[in-house]
Structure formats: C-alpha cells, structure tokens
C-alpha cells in the first residue's frame, strides 16, 4: 500500500541500498572463514530494510548513532565502503584507522558520528547531538539505532524523558529482532510491545514491519519531518528477523534456541525480495536494470575488498595515537 506514497526514484534507491547492504554482508560472510577480518562481525542480514528506510529520509548533515550491528546503518547513511571494509580488516585506511573494528564504524562526512557496542550506549549521545542542533539552530535531526536489548537499558528511559522534556529533534529507532544473543525477548521482557513505552513520555511511537522497506520509509519520513519541524522526538519499533547468529557468520546454534515455526515464518520474509518483486510488478525495476545494479554493486564491493586487503596495517609505534585530541 505504502508504495503508492513513495516516488519511484526513492523506491529504486531503497532497492539499491538494501542490495548493497545484502551483498556486502554476504561477501563478509563468504570471506570471514579466512580469518583475515580479525574483528567480531554482527551481520544485519534480514534487517536491511530498516537502515535503508530510515536513512533514505535523512540529509547528509543529519546525525546517525549506531551500535554493534552497524554495517547496515553505515552503508545506508552513505559511509565510504572502502573505509568500512578496511576497518573490518583492521587496516590504517579503515574508517576508524584500525582502532575500532566492525563494531565502531564512523563516517563524519556523512553524519555517521559513531557506533557504540555498549547496548543502549549511543542513545543519550544521539539525544545530546539533537540538543546541540537546537542550541545552534542548524536544523539537523539525530537518529539512533538500538535493539530490543537496548530497550531493556535504563538509559533509554532517561533519554526519552529528557528528549521529550526539551522537545529535541531525535528519532529513536528500535530494531526488534527478538533476540539478545540467544535469549528470546519473551525471556527478558514482561510485555513485548516496546512501542507502547515511549507513550508514557508523550513520545509518538508505533510498530513497523521492519521487513517492509516502504513501510519503514513512510513511518520514518513522518518521524524525521516531525523532528525537523521541532515537534519533538518520535519512536519506531521496527520488527525484523536476525537471520544469523548474534556474532560471526552463520547460525550454528539456531536449532537450539529458535522456534522452528517462528524461523520458517520470518525466513519467508525477505526484505530485498519483497521490494524487488514489488518494483518489478510496478515496472520500476526490470531484469536488465536489476542485473545492471547488481553488477555495479559487485564491482564496488570487489574494489573495496581489494582496497582493504592491500592497505597497510596500523603502525605499532602509533598504538597511543588518537587517544587525546
């Protein structure tokens, strides 16, 4: 339904972004066994539509704060792919110069201001960036991504209270993938409706189908426009499935902690395939165009891995560099 509200060009861009995230994650997965990327990766396969749908509504100058599962956010916000892959290879040319690794991606040139691997840690920081935007009256919106685990941290509620109190231009994006490592949400939360909690602070919130890029796009657009017009914070609980294990590649333990029905139901929902089918159905995407997009991304990824693999490692004498500004 929502497709009708979105211009064809924007839908196509969503498709490209989701394809890029998907292909990058699969490439990482493909090469990870070589042990050349010596950093714990947290793949976002299955959740790509959330990053894409949200960031499509942001300007380059808007802020995004990410978490340990940061690849999708980084790519969707327009972060430099060479620098991202180089960071996974822990190289000096990485976006964090090999000091951060996969969980600490940054590209300030496109407003991705950092990623915290302390669950919930980025939430108040995003609120602070929104405060700065109000004090400077520069119109920037701040977005923070966190998960269902992050919704269990007290700092979220402290942050929502302050953001609502000062009507700050911040959008809280909770990516509910139902699992914190191997613990299901039902083992951790008394009520699985995360989206009802912000209402206590008067923050508009809703649940969104996070496997549907168009739905995320429409809701995020509204939230971000709200923030930009100084109507205060909003909250989206975007539900999607984590196709892989918490960290690393594959999901060897899945039979031991996931319910088979749930698994089947969600694995039938492929955010990329659903968008692709819709776009082909509407004539926005053709087979030729699809091939062309796929090949361009493959080439970009090939170059990024080539760049990363051939980049220099950090200098051992510079272990203390960047500690202080």
């Amino acid at each position, binding site marked *: 339904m929502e497709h009708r509200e979105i211009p064809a060009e924007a839908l196509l861009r969503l498709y490209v972004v989701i394809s890029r995230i998907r292909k990058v994650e699969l490439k990482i997965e493909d090469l990870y066994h070589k042990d050349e990327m010596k950093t714990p990766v947290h793949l976002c396969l299955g959740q790509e539509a959330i990053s894409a749908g949200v960031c499509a509504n942001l300007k380059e100058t808007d802020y995004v704060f990410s978490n340990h599962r940061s690849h999708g956010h980084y790519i969707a916000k327009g972060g430099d792919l060479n620098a991202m892959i180089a960071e996974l290879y822990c190289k000096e040319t990485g976006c964090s110069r090999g000091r951060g690794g996969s969980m600490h991606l*940054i590209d300030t040139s496109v407003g991705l201001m950092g990623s915290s691997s302390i669950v919930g840690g980025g939430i108040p920081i995003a609120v*602070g960036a929104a405060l700065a935007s109000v004090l400077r009256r520069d119109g920037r919106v701040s977005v923070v991504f966190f998960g269902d685990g992050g919704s269990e941290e007290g*700092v979220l509620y*402290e942050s929502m209270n302050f953001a609502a109190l000062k009507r700050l231009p911040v959008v809280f994006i909770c990516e509910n993938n139902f699992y914190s490592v191997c613990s299901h949400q039902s083992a951790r939360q008394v009520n699985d409706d995360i989206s009802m909690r912000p209402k206590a602070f008067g923050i508009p919130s809703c649940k969104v189908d996070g496997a549907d890029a168009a739905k995320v796009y429409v809701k995020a657009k509204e939230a971000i426009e709200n923030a930009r017009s100084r109507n205060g914070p909003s909250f989206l609980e975007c539900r999607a499935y984590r196709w892989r294990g918490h960290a690393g590649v594959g999901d060897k333990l899945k039979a031991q902690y996931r319910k088979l029905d749930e698994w089947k139901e969600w694995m039938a929902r492929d955010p990329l395939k659903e968008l692709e089918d819709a776009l082909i159905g509407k004539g926005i995407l053709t087979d030729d165009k699809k091939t062309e997009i796929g090949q361009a991304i493959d080439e970009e990824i090939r170059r990024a891995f080539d760049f990363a693999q051939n980049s220099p490692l950090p200098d051992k004498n510079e272990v203390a560099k*960047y500690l202080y*500004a």
Partner: protein
Amino acid sequence: MPWTKILIEKQEPGFDEHAGQDVRKLTFPQALREALDQAMERDDRVFVMGQGVDDPTGMFGTTLDLHKKYGSERVFDTPLSENAMTGVAVGAAIAGLRPVYIHNRPDFLMLAMDQIVNHASKWSYMFGGHVNVPLVIRAVIGRGWGSAAQHSQSLHGLFMHVPGLKLVMPSTAYDAKGLLITSIADNNPVIFIEHRWSYKHEGHVPKELYSIPFGKGVVRRLGKDVTIVGISYMVIEALRVAAELQEKGYDLEVIDLRTLKPLDEQIILNSVKKTGRLIIVDTDWVTGGVTAEIAAIVAEKGFEYLKAPIKRVGWPDVPVPASYVLEEAFYPGAEQIINAVKEIVE
C-alpha cells in the same frame, strides 16, 4: 578560534601572595563562577548543565545567576538521570559544543560510569581521532557533618585509571579559575574534582581570563628534608603541617600536583632527588589509588633517591562514617602527616 589567545600562566607566583592591579581576592567558588562566566562570554559553544545549576544556591555559588545572564538554553537544570545526561553532554560535545556538566558529589558520577568510561573517554581513540569530546564534568567532594558513605567519596583514583580522560583537582582559588578555563578549552573529556573544604579558601585571582597548563604541578613550599606530594584540600593540610613543623626543625617541601592526568612526574622526582623522602597525601583510599600510583612511579624512576620507604597518608579501607567521632578517626589530617614526617626522618 575563541581559545587561542588566552594568557597562559607560567607558574603561580607563590601561594596566595599574588598582588597586582587586576587581582582581587575571591573565594574558591567565586573563582569557579568567574571562569564559567568568562568562558561562556568568550565562546557561545560553552553551556552549563546540572541538577540545580539555576537554583537560588547556584551550585554552592559556582553557577549563581548565570542563567539570568546567558538564558535557560545555555544554563539549565537536568533530570537526575546521570548516565543519560552524561551521554547527552557527550553527544553535544561530539556535535561541536563544549558542555560543562556539574554534580554536587563525585558519588553521583558512579551512575554515569558507562558514559564516562565506555563512551566519553573512548570516542576519540576508538574512531581514529575523527571526533573528539570537549566535555567538562565537575563534582564537589563532601566532608563532615555526617555526610557519610555516599556523599563524601572522592573516587578520583577510578578516573585516573582510565586512558582518554583528564583529571584535574585544584586546591586554590587561583588554580580553580585557571584550570577550569583550561578544562573548557581542552578538546578532551576532563573530570574536574573540587573539595567542599577548599571552598572556604580565599585567594588572589586575576580578573582576566587565564589558563593553567595541565600536567604542571607547583611547589607550594620549598624545603629540603621531606617531600610532601598532595592534591586538592590535602595540600592545604600539608602546608599547615609544614608551617607547624618548621619550628621543630623539619623543613618540608610541599608539592601541589593540580592535575593527576596528565601527571607532573618530573616535579615529584626532582623534589625526591633533593629530599630523599616522600610522603603522599590524598583525599581518597590508599588501596589501588592515586597514592599507590605515585609511589609506584617513584619506585620505578627514582628508587635510588630514596633514603627511607615512601609513606602514604590517605583513607583507611572503610566507607566514610557519619558520626563525628568516627569521622575524626577516619579522616587523616595534620596529626597523621606529622607522624609520617617524624617516622620518615628517623
């Protein structure tokens, strides 16, 4: 840039003896307030936040009426959410502002350790220097009147442990102003810990904006027999003892470190080289703390200078008690320093 033309102080000209036409006496909190005022005046990126900063007491006078001058956007009260509010300050700093977040007590910073230790101190390094966090966190150590276990802690040893932070502990009004200016101008997270008993101190403070370099201790009193290294309020105690013991023939050198991170190792080593005896006094537990760190540095780099084992005067390994009788037993002061001096000389 707003901070490039500040007068840099070369060395404080003697303890509380500065006099000149643009110098008048201020109390420690008045000096802090003046630093905040002048910093806000100079740089509109500076803002002040904290529970009660705009209330009628103005954080012991250190923020009094600043909100009237700069408005409630730049000087604002906060919810008690110490962890989130520290994150808010970190985020504003990452976005280019210069927050000063003020707390009544260091005890409350324990609620914000995630944002201080895992975020503020890491953001520059973890992201290869692409961003920095010009943030100042102030807190005031309580003491006495039954303030007890959760309103009297100093806890600076915890912060000294963490790379990426800077740690400042002034003992005089002059230093309070100059070091707070340096902290605000610094591009890194600075923990600025004051002592409530220093607030009684009054000293000569220049009217102009000046900054005191980090990592530069000062010799408060020259002496040849024993080196006493202290920080914050314990410097005042050490100076009292030095004056008292002078009559009994002990000539003490008293060093005020002013900042613990960076630490002026050289001023300690130079003094110990001369005196051969070191006593370290602190407003905190000795175990695993700042006195332990300083003792270790001297043992590593100045062992050959030592004529006697190093002595430390700090808190015993118990929480701060409430009863004034127990407070007396708990807090080391002149008596303990005098005993340490006598023991180390004999």
